[in-house]
């Protein structure tokens, strides 16, 4: 039977196992919506802003490991996806964005709602495809999914003109293979690379594993932990590597970097070998590159060859799928104890206890987050945006299972926490999802609370409300002589009333002793809940390595000396 382009898109989505898409219709993409209504197996979640469609698809993807899908119309619909797509690209998240385009005769004429969206998204996608013939639709969708999920994952945008969606019909033939002669996906690494890495690891006396997002993407967490245990190598996670090893694992030192644990950064400074696994030595991790791990050699394993030697000159670069590489590597790693090294790190931890929340009479945001995952016993998914709340969550929330910490790392996207949490909850309906929000970020995307309510996504929102743009405020405090230009809100809405306006429960918390009860109540309440934590206003995220500096310039929390 011959089908329209729109029907072929739907058939292709079914072939890819897609059962949910996030989107918002408009003129050019309407033919696709016309077809979608006849495909009940594909659930459509109507967002209030296309930005949320992309970010929900991102959250869905990170929570499930499946390809998230978002839809938008041409022009403004497509450009509203851009921030979400850029976030997915920076964090290697598999996503397929399908956009309607103006009909082919109008392309290039500056027609109504025409934007060159393949041009716009060229540098922020793994790949994009403009489909100019209905006969190419199935192949385009097939290849888009294959590219998105394989190798180093990323977003792929497929732009389809209205008259390709709804014009000439053609037979639906699902392609058996990709049509991508220039695309190859590494799996095993060359033996020589693995041997070189193993030799450095076996020789090292003060090794550290740095675990990135690749550990989660490649499902390599089990093997990584096994390697760490076998050779007794402490593990530091990047922001996106959090939850790749249980928070309470004795070898887990937590996050390093700009706001990482002081002892983790100090350990890196003394290490003689850094083993980077599925991470990219980004500037927030390294600080000033010339002063980063000055005593260390570098083993770097990544599936993306261009990451090797990009930021750090490696001594043993290994290109391959991390799980496959660890399978190759593990038998070659000698069992080891590293007693002196681990004992030394314990001492560093005792001397620089940045994991401990100081005692205070005020409602500290760190305290809220620590209690939050105490209550959930580390078994909920925590989703954050960017800023102070994100760093405190990274420092003080605890995690047991992989893929339970979802955050906008590379792009650092405010407002990500609301739609991404929605997407995560849709993907993992049996799991409690806490969206940890800043009051700034929450207001960027809170329109999509309606989407959560409408779609029955049971997201619990914890707003760490300090009535300012906290991280900006902090930077102004430290570097701009307390000139708080444009970082303080004088008219935040009443978030409890916002909750009520959406027909959901709102809880305000102003005291420490109310925190646990509020978290429990939120989880006992069916449906979304907003908890407005009125936290201490001018709290600073410590430790703090100023941008472009090294561990030598690290600022630590002064109060730690008194309480620990």
């Amino acid at each position, binding site marked *: 039977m011959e089908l329209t382009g729109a029907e072929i898109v739907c058939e292709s989505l079914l072939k890819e196992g897609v059962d949910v898409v996030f989107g918002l219709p408009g003129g050019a993409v309407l033919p696709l919506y016309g077809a979608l209504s006849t495909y009940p197996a594909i659930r459509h979640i109507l967002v209030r802003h296309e930005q949320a469609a992309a970010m929900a698809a991102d959250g869905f993807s990170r929570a499930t490991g499946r390809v998230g899908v978002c839809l938008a119309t041409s022009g403004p619909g497509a450009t509203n996806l851009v921030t979400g797509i850029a976030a997915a690209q920076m964090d290697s998240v598999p996503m397929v964005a399908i956009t309607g385009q103006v009909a082919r005769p109008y392309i290039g004429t500056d027609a109504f709602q025409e934007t060159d969206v*393949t*041009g716009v998204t*060229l*540098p922020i996608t*793994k*790949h994009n495809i*403009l489909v100019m013939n209905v006969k190419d639709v199935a192949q385009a969708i097939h290849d888009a999914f294959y*590219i998105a999920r394989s190798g180093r994952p990323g977003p792929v945008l497929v732009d389809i003109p209205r008259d390709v969606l709804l014009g000439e019909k053609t037979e639906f033939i699902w392609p058996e293979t990709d049509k*991508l*002669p*220039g*695309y*190859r996906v*590494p799996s095993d*690494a*060359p033996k020589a*690379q693995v041997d070189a890495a193993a030799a450095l690891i076996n020789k090292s006396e003060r090794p550290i594993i740095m675990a990135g997002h690749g550990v989660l993407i490649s499902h390599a967490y089990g093997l990584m932990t096994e390697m760490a245990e076998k050779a007794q190598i402490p593990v530091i996670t990047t922001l996106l590597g959090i939850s790749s090893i249980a928070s309470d694992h004795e070898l887990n030192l937590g996050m390093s970097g700009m706001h990482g644990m002081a002892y983790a950064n100090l350990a890196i400074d003394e290490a003689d070998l850094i083993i980077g696994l599925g991470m990219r030595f980004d500037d927030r991790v390294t600080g000033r590159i010339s002063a980063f791990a000055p005593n260390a050699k570098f083993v770097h394993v990544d599936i*993306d*060859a*261009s990451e*090797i*030697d*990009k930021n750090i*000159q*490696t001594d043993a*670069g*290994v*290109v*391959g799928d991390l799980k496959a590489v660890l399978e190759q590597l593990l038998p070659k790693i000698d069992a080891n104890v590293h007693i002196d090294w681990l004992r030394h790190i314990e001492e560093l931890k005792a001397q620089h206890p940045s994991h401990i929340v100081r005692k205070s009479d005020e409602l500290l945001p760190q305290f809220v987050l620590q209690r939050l995952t105490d209550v959930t016993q580390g078994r909920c998914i925590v989703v954050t945006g960017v800023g102070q709340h994100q760093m405190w969550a990274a420092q003080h929330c605890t995690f047991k299972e992989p893929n339970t910490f979802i955050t906008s790392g590379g792009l650092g996207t405010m407002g990500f926490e609301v739609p991404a949490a929605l997407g995560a909850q849709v993907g993992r309906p049996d799991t409690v999802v806490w969206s940890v929000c800043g009051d700034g970020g929450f207001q960027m995307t809170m329109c999509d609370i309606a989407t959560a309510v409408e779609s029955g996504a049971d997201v619990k929102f914890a707003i760490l409300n300090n009535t300012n743009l906290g991280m900006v405020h902090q930077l102004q405090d430290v570097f701009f002589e307390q000139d708080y230009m444009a970082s303080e809100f004088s008219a935040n809405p009443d978030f409890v009333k916002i909750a009520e306006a959406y027909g959901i429960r709102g809880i305000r918390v102003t005291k420490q002793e109310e925190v646990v009860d509020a978290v429990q109540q939120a989880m006992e309440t069916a449906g979304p809940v907003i908890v407005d934590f009125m936290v201490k206003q001018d709290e600073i995220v410590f430790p703090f390595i100023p941008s472009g500096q090294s561990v030598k310039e690290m600022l630590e929390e002064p109060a730690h000396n008194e309480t620990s």
Partner: protein
Amino acid sequence: MSQQNETEQHTLIALVEDKPGVLNRVASMFRRRGFNIVSLAVGNSEQAGLSRMTFVVNGDDRTVSQVAKQLDKLIDVLEVADITEARIVARELAMIKVKTTSTNRGEIIQIVNLFRANIIDVGRESMVIEITGEGDKINALYDLLAPFGIIEMSRSGIVAMERGEAKGLTNGHGANSAKSNGTS
């Protein structure tokens, strides 16, 4: 990008899909990553559906290695090779339009012959000279013609290949590909 090593010119060749937008993807990658293209030439390869690009790029070894890897990462790029160290032939074509008068025409023709260049158009007060060769040769001719007054010049960018039977590119999936090497 580290600049500790010496910056020098590298010649890279790439096999890419002959599709709309590929040149844009390549150019966009260079722009976005701050790599410096000295010259770029694109045309058909010996295989239908595949174009061949020749890049001349300035940078130290590590930067140029990044260029090759980032190029190779583009989905439409089948293969990339840095052939700077190989035995290669490299040629560029230039057309130079020079001002002439009845008195200096003879002198210009002498220079052109000396370079084994060709005169492909003669006007009353101008001449178009075609020269093929390596960049240095073209520069040398340009310098000699400059005193007469150069009206315009157009250069094709360098195209290059390995000498002998060696193939710089193995047409997709061979051992020379940066895709299978990973690190350099």
